């Protein structure tokens, strides 16, 4: 093996990542274990967070803001479906973004592909998502909503969301190492992002001529696709295709930036 100076244009070396698959597994396992060990309510938090937000939004946006009128069916259920995926997404992005500086000790003492750290942060959130999703099935039973065959498409949108989270998470995590300012950017960026995504409101309130521009936010297609495959409803092909395209571009950009700067991490962290 040869150790050389960092190239200015470093590619992604998948063959190099493969031997470290077990370390990825152990990081995910550690994050999940520690998270549940330190909390009294454990997995309940995975439900409490989206449920509390749903209640809040139902009162303020649904009732007082009148958004519930645009939604066919139950507004709380509508919001909860979107929020269960959104909560996973926003947690994944912020955990991934802060994961590198949270592991600064490891980075300055041991070598392994740094990519593992933010990826583990994203994957460890999947358990919470599964719990929240299980509760969604309970809610659907309560509201007498039966899932259609479209529900089989659901994993596609979860994978898509992981792709978006990985793209944004990698980009932010690498930026935060060099520029700590981005820690503050990420918090409100994710908050604003929620309002640029049809979680609280139906897609119809966006004027038709702005739709494609709006769909450049890949989470638009992911949320709409996810919700409609759970609750039944049309799957707008243009939005979903755009979403997967921008998700792929975002991931490519994130990966490219990350792999280019990752060898510098130990010097600046």
């Amino acid at each position, binding site marked *: 093996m*040869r150790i*050389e100076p960092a190239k200015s244009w470093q590619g992604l070396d998948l063959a190099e990542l493969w031997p470290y698959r077990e370390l990825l597994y152990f990081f995910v396992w*550690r994050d999940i274990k520690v998270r549940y060990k330190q909390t009294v309510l454990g997995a309940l938090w995975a439900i409490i967070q989206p449920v509390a937000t749903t209640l809040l939004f139902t009162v303020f946006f649904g009732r007082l803001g009148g958004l519930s009128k645009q939604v066919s069916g139950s507004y709380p259920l509508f919001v909860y479906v979107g929020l269960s995926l959104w909560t996973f997404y926003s947690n994944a992005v912020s955990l991934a973004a802060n994961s590198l500086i949270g592991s600064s000790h490891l980075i300055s003492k041991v070598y*392994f592909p740094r990519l593992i750290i933010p990826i583990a942060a994203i994957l460890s959130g999947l358990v919470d998502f599964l719990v929240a999703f299980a509760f969604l099935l309970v809610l659907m039973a309560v509201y007498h909503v039966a899932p259609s065959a479209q529900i089989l498409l659901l994993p596609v949108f979860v994978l898509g969301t992981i792709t978006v989270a990985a793209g944004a998470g990698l980009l932010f995590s690498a930026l935060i190492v060099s*520029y700590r*300012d981005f820690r503050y950017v990420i918090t409100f960026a994710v908050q604003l992002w929620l309002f640029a995504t049809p979680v609280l409101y139906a897609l119809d309130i966006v004027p038709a001529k702005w739709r494609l521009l709006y769909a450049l936010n890949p989470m638009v297609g992911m949320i709409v696709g996810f919700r409609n495959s759970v609750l039944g409803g049309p799957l707008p092909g243009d939005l979903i295709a755009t979403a997967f395209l921008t998700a792929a571009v975002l991931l490519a950009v994130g990966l490219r930036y990350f792999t280019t700067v990752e060898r510098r991490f130990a010097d*600046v962290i």
Partner: protein
Amino acid sequence: MSSKTAIAIHGVAKRYTIGATQDATQFRESIVSMLGAPWRRLRRLAGHQSADTTEFWALKDVSFTVGVGDVVGIIGPNGAGKSTLLKILSRITPPTRGYIDLDGRVSSLLEVGTGFHPELTGRENIFLNGAILGMMREEIRRKFDAIVSFAELDTFIDTPVKHYSSGMYVRLAFSVAAHLEPEILIIDEVLSVGDLHFRNRCLGRMRDMRDEGRTVLFVSHDLTSVRQLCNRAVLLTAGTVSADGDPDSVTRRYEQMNRDPSSAGAGSADRVHPPPGYHLRRVELRNQSGTAARHFDAGDAMEIHLWSSGRAPADSYTVEFKLLNEVDQVVSFGSANPVRATYYTADKDHYICRLGPLPLTEGSYSFSFTVRVWNEARWDFWENAIGFQIDRCDLFKTGHSVTGDHNGPVVIQQEWL
């Protein structure tokens, strides 16, 4: 020495860029340069100075090869580039120039217990730490019983390690590391932690590794263990190899270098690799007449002056020193807070400690400094910040100086009747 090469280092150099406040500024700088001149003028009006970044070559041009089965000790003074070389060999940081060829499965140990999580049990941490060190799950499972019994803590293996004593913690951590089976082992001075019993076990394990024919690269301050373990030593000074050969002559050369008064600074030292953010940046030792010095006699008074990089993160903190002798044993400890009966405030950036009369025997000593919130977060740790020499120890005016070799580092004030 074997004819086959395990490690070949070719002209390796490493440059660090040291900025006053490295991380935050660069981003601001890049935005500033984007926005152009008007904003720069504004900043100057507001009293900002542009960050002057200085280059620093931690390693200048290092080349040497290590044969398969060699045990090589790397020695040298602080700032000579030992840890930088170690970090490059461990792939933690890339070299700026040059390259290294490694032939064989490498494990590098810059500390024991990397990645231990306090909430996880001993069992869980063995798997986690093992994976971090590069072991496969199957391999860890196979060695698990051996690791536990080597660490001597069977009954506590399912207890979270936060409840462990520091001795148990280090034993477990070392035990995992001791079960690595690399072809090339790159190891930092992890041996200098722990008690004598533990150090001996570490040395024993290193000896086993040597006898099993593994290649070991060992960075150390402890010249005795270098002489005992290694069949070759490399002396680094100021980022270059200044001696390379059999351990006895190289370590002797290093000792002579240390004793040479002309090589000692004027009694002050600046931080070589300052961490980003708040840190101690400069230390000065002053003698009774108030001039900076590195040479003292027993019975002298000493004044330590420490300067920090600027405003501390918060109020209510203390500064501590540890005084160590030649073999890195702690001789004494002191902390500002209990002595001053009050904490330092955030705006303080110059700390003074008056010490003495020094009850120390002949020999060389060094200080490490810590800035911390009492019993909590450690804001800065400056290891081996500065060394000094006790030239003469004749506290009782007998005309006979006491050396540290057989008499210990300290002379207690005494009267014989």
